[in-house]
């Protein structure tokens, strides 16, 4: 352990602001990448499913319309 106390660790020999700024921003950006990747997939899955249901509904409507034409 290079530091004697927690306060010393935070102070980083007077360079605390720069050290913690660097590490904070870096890990925030990395976390953002992780979240963005996960969220993008969630949205994609949802969109693809919605599109599949839409196609299904169109198909059903078409067959129903065709049946009505037959009965008239």
């Amino acid at each position, binding site marked *: 352990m290079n*530091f004697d106390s927690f306060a010393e660790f935070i102070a980083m020999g007077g360079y605390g602001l720069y*050290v913690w700024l660097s590490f904070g921003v*870096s890990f925030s950006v990395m976390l953002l990448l992780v979240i963005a990747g996960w969220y*993008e997939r969630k949205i994609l*899955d949802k969109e693809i499913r919605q599109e599949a249901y839409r196609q299904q509904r169109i198909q059903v409507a078409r067959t129903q319309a065709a049946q009505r034409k037959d009965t008239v």
Partner: protein
Amino acid sequence: MFMWLHQYAKTEAAYSLCNRLIPWFAAISMGCLVTGTVWGLLFAPSDYQQGDAFRIIYIHVPAAMLSMSTYIAMAVAALVGLVWQWRTAFMAMIAIAPVGAAVTFIALFTGAAWGKPMWGAWWVWDARLTSELILLFLYCGVIALYCAFDDKQQAGKAAGVMALVGVVNVPVIHFSVQWWNTLHQGATITRLDKPAIATQMLWPLLINIVGMAAFIFTISCVRLKNEIIRREQRRPWVQQLVHSNEAKNEL
């Protein structure tokens, strides 16, 4: 020689390869980054000149080194896409680009935060800094060009050519500290020489480089999976996958 690679031109094969690799690389990345960062921040001795400000090295050097390696990886993907006409390679290229841009940003930002206490300025128009900034612009250019086309195969080709042309910047960044008079210090670790850093300081750095590399690889795989799903959404295997995912979520 590279024939084994050709099976991964199929998006389905590439997707399942990503799935298999992600857990391993995510674990390596987490393990190494936590170990390296804690070791670097808490246990590594202070620098005799820079005091504790030198600890920024543990994030700055991995990010700066890997921003170049990531660019090379992206350019190789672009080359494969252009030469072998692989759609999957262009998908890999565009999956890597934003990750590389983020890593380049980290390198620039931590460099600025290190420059302020050591040089007295957040930014100087120095050869190393400027060429690294150009690298960020190249990443952004590749992304912007890819987004400008509706036909994604065309987009891949255009952005791929740009990625390849930009490779010329990588050796410029690497040798900038030797070719020009610069404020930026020389290389800390080189392949040929003994590293210019004490062993207790070196280990956390190496561990963080491995961790950062694994992180970049993991996120690139995740993004490649997303890109494959987006581009292949009409394929039966993707439809099946998405609907089985839904069934899993409902349980």
